[in-house]
């Protein structure tokens, strides 16, 4: 794994994708070795807000040394990020976390499930799974994304990488309801699930995977401070004693954010 660092990243472009959802491309040397599902910490310039904001990586362009972040404006930090213009610089910390285990996909039917602002990291995963060499690539890629309404950001890009099924809370696009409603309605089959989204969705996916004997890898979120495993702020309960902490707590920032759903007590 590449050495972590705090560095400056140059804004290449930024636009709004949907209400409150920003699409930001950064030029940074951190783009060199990224696993889908990893994240970076982005620092507000406002000195009253000192902690890095964990934001998942939506796309990587190694040739251009570029990372794409698709994030939701949720507070003063992300509101500040939304104002950045091309040519300006942001401080970033990375690369953080483990990422999705793509080796589990070899020869198997995979289902990528995203909800809300958990959707973006699955785009890089879909793209990397699609271009895996024969023998390592999945036999089928199904993508099931859940949105609030018809603002189905990143939809076209997902369609380029697999069969896309959409669920919307208001029923305006695809199945009405959540991602599992879309799975049932479309009879989507899978051997392996990769998921990122709000906790109620991840809990439901964990149960669905258990009931259907599917392996599920879920990306978790928690309030974070350091991002590098030192502060023990962002822990998640584990089923077994954690090898690092020696208690039933694991660090989402360093041992995750992606976990085998069987291993975490959510």
């Amino acid at each position: 794994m590449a050495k972590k660092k705090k560095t400056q990243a140059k804004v290449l472009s930024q636009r709004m994708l949907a209400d409150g959802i920003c699409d930001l491309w950064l030029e940074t040397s951190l783009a060199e070795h990224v696993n889908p599902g990893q994240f970076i910490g982005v620092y507000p310039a406002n000195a009253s807000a000192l902690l890095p904001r964990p934001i998942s990586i939506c796309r990587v362009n190694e040739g251009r040394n570029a990372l794409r972040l698709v994030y939701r404006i949720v507070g003063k930090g992300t509101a500040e990020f939304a104002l950045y213009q091309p040519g300006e610089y942001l401080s970033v910390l990375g690369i953080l976390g483990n990422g999705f285990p793509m080796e589990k996909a070899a020869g198997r039917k995979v289902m990528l499930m995203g909800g809300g602002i958990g959707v973006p990291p699955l785009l890089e995963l879909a793209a990397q799974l699609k271009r895996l060499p024969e023998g390592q690539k999945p036999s089928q890629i199904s993508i099931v994304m859940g949105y609030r309404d018809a603002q189905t950001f990143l939809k076209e890009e997902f369609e380029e990488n697999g069969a896309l099924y959409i669920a919307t809370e208001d029923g305006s696009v695809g199945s009405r309801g959540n991602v599992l409603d879309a799975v049932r309605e479309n009879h989507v089959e899978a051997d392996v699930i990769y998921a990122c989204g709000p906790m109620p969705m991840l809990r439901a996916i964990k149960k669905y995977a258990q009931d259907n004997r599917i392996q599920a890898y879920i990306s978790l979120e928690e309030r974070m401070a350091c991002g590098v495993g030192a502060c023990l702020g962002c822990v998640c309960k584990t089923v077994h004693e954690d090898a690092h902490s020696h208690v039933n707590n694991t660090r989402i920032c360093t041992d995750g954010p992606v976990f085998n759903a069987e291993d975490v007590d959510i």
Partner: protein
Amino acid sequence: MNTSVEIAGVSFKNPVMTASGTFGSGMEYAEFADLNRLGAVITKGVANVPWPGNPTPRVVETYGGMLNAIGLQNPGVDVMIERDLPYLQQFDTGVIVNVCGKSVEDYIEVVEKLSDQPVDLLEINVSCPNVKEGAIAFGQKADALYNITEQLKKHAKQPIIMKLSPNVTDIAEMAKAAEAAGADAISLINTITGMKIDIDKRRFALANKTGGLSGPAIKPVAVRMVYQAAQAVKIPIIGMGGIATAEDAIEFILAGATAVAVGMMNFHDPYATMSVIEGIEKYMQMQHVEDIRELIGAVHD
């Protein structure tokens, strides 16, 4: 130019340390900071047995700082001895282990287990605001602080630093109690008890309701308390509380700290300790200070 300082007979190459709980046991920050350049690593607090800590959310940002209620999650002293202390031994840095407990017996068990370990000093945490039993119960009353200090002095092989809470009426009285009971040094301040409310969810921002405030927001309080403690006692002081820059560190030293620790600001800038070390040297050059010890407590009545 001399930047080395001495605490209880132990010499440190410079006065810059890491505040307990903000730097793990060094491993997590070794990718950023050269641990060989640090005066010392002060480890995350360790108890006699593993502690699971508090429910999440455990951390929340506040203006110019953060609140935490980790609850002293730690893997226990045995893991520290097997894993963390051998790791730290690879580096040319001082090692100070922060010790926590729920009862005096817990603390004694930890300091006894550490007695033959490569540890320079023990920092006794009697000031964590986030655990119900022990910890701060020993640190908010002068007689309780005196008692635990006296007991630990009987069992500890290494010199002990009592880490004081700012959540007291009179810090000088606490510093005096620690000194009178035989503490070799004191460190201050631990975090200041605080609270944040999420107005959208109409809930406490932390699962523990209250947490310890740290970061630049608390620095003036910390400098004041270090100054008051320095006026009250002769034992050395490790000063901490919101140190972000060399200028901040020098303020603490001028107020009476022999050494300083960078805490929450490691999270903002994982290289912060390195720039504080460099900045102190630069300040000494600019101000023609030959020996850093000239600065310790140089500002007073």
